[in-house]
């Protein structure tokens, strides 16, 4: 069973707030997921290079050329709050 404390920590990393009840329900579900992972962890992978990508190819690069986007003004307008061209948010350290 997943430690509740661990669950709260994970939630806080994702900036999620959990009620007591949600935490109870979730800890069971998450524990199950973790068990699946521990099953996979038992598989012997000695000598295998970890697969980071399946079929993305390699060395996909683009030329260093400017293409202007029209997003800027629309993005500022769409922001919940802005001050001139700054997007403003509650103070964060």
């Amino acid at each position, binding site marked *: 069973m997943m430690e509740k404390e661990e669950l709260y920590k994970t939630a806080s*990393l994702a900036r999620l707030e959990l009620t007591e009840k949600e935490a109870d329900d979730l800890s069971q579900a998450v524990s199950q997921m973790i068990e699946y992972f521990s099953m996979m962890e038992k598989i012997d992978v000695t000598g295998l290079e970890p697969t980071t990508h399946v079929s*993305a190819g390699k060395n*996909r690069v683009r030329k260093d050329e400017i293409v202007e*986007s029209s997003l800027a003004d629309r993005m*500022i307008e769409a922001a919940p709050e802005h001050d001139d061209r700054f997007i403003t948010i509650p103070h*964060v350290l």
Partner: protein
Amino acid sequence: MIETFIGLEIHIQLLTKTKIFCNCKNEFSHIPNTNVCPVCMGYPGVLPRLNEEAVRKAYIVCRALNCHLNEKAVFERKNYFYPDLPKNYQISQFALPFGVNGLVEIDGVPKIRIHEAHLEEDAGKLVHEGMTSYCDFNRTGTPLLEIVTEPDFKKPEDAELFLQNFRKMVRYLRVCDGNMEEGSMRCDVNVSVNFEGKGLGRKVEIKNLNSFRHVRLALQHEIQRQSKMLTAGETIVQETRLWNDEKKRTESMRSKEDANDYRYFPEPDLPPYYPAPEFLAAIEKEQTELPWIRKRRFINEYKLADDGAEFLTEERERADFFEAALNAGVSVQSASSWMRGEIAKGLNKNKMSLKDSHLTVEKFVTLIKLLDEGKINSQGAKKAMEILICEDKDTADVIRENNLMQMADSGELEAVVDKVIAGNDKVVQQIKGGDQKPIGFLIGQIMKASGGKADPKKARELLLNKIS
């Protein structure tokens, strides 16, 4: 005895036209939120595409730092929630960065091992004021190369000297402008102390260092603080501290106990990068003699003093100019004294660097030849130099237009000398009476009367002949 361990984390913004994963302009702008697009703003469904120029410049640095270049490099997502990055993760490299295990050997600094150099995207800029934070995402996605050293520095002064050389290096390599005030080059330090022979102590990271001076001061302060605690038997907390330049001290920012768990994982949208042999051969061609190596060579080869070699190798353009002038036949003495003297003075006065001035090696060499041949005198040469720096003109034209040719005709000079003798009878009598001192005064008068065109040596000869 207490031992100190210092390591550096240096971030350099790479000089590219566009951002690292999108085609937005990579350019500082005073107008917030202008260089943004769906990719760097993390809109759903967009695909990052790697800028080949950022890759090239990153490898140039890795190679210059003698790094081992990983056969395969992988971008990863570094997950953290902070409003300076709208994606909620930063694309960086973690397990397989471009370069690892480098080594830098600079004269006067111990050998410094490079842990790694990895390419990532810069975050946006937040301005905090009152109850509000202001977000500007222009900087978001600027290609950023992070270089991490091993904790091999023993003294704050070594770290400072290393950084000065490092900045020269990135400028020599033309990958970064190295401007610490504007943040295109930034440095965090980590430092720990321990009793000798006990190995590394508990590491403290210091941020908010905007100049080399701040790096040195912050390290000096922090080493003192930690040493006192260590001697008093107190526990040093592993944490991040900020340099407060007004109070000249470091202050606790956050404790590492609830250290961020970044949950790195390979970026699924970017395939791995395998540097090809032909690509690496091209990187090899971009290598240039590094500033500290060039300085050492200048001292050995041209018998320059340390400060002279330091000055001449400060910028790559300056060192290139110097050596090109030597190749064209100018003497070491002449080239170095002109560059440190009149040229430096003129550039300074016009707030120019050699690169953006109008002076070229050819113009300089022509000027020195005319001077050596006695066609112009040093006063005229200095005057011409002032003009050559800020106007786009040939040396010959400048000399002709400003009438700087030395009086070649001795008859003309003789007439001037006669005139000066006639007009300064009292002084002439003084000299005839055995007082040598006023000779200089008369030469000055001759120079003045000739409009600066007389050859002072010839004038002196003539004058003394006539008086005695």
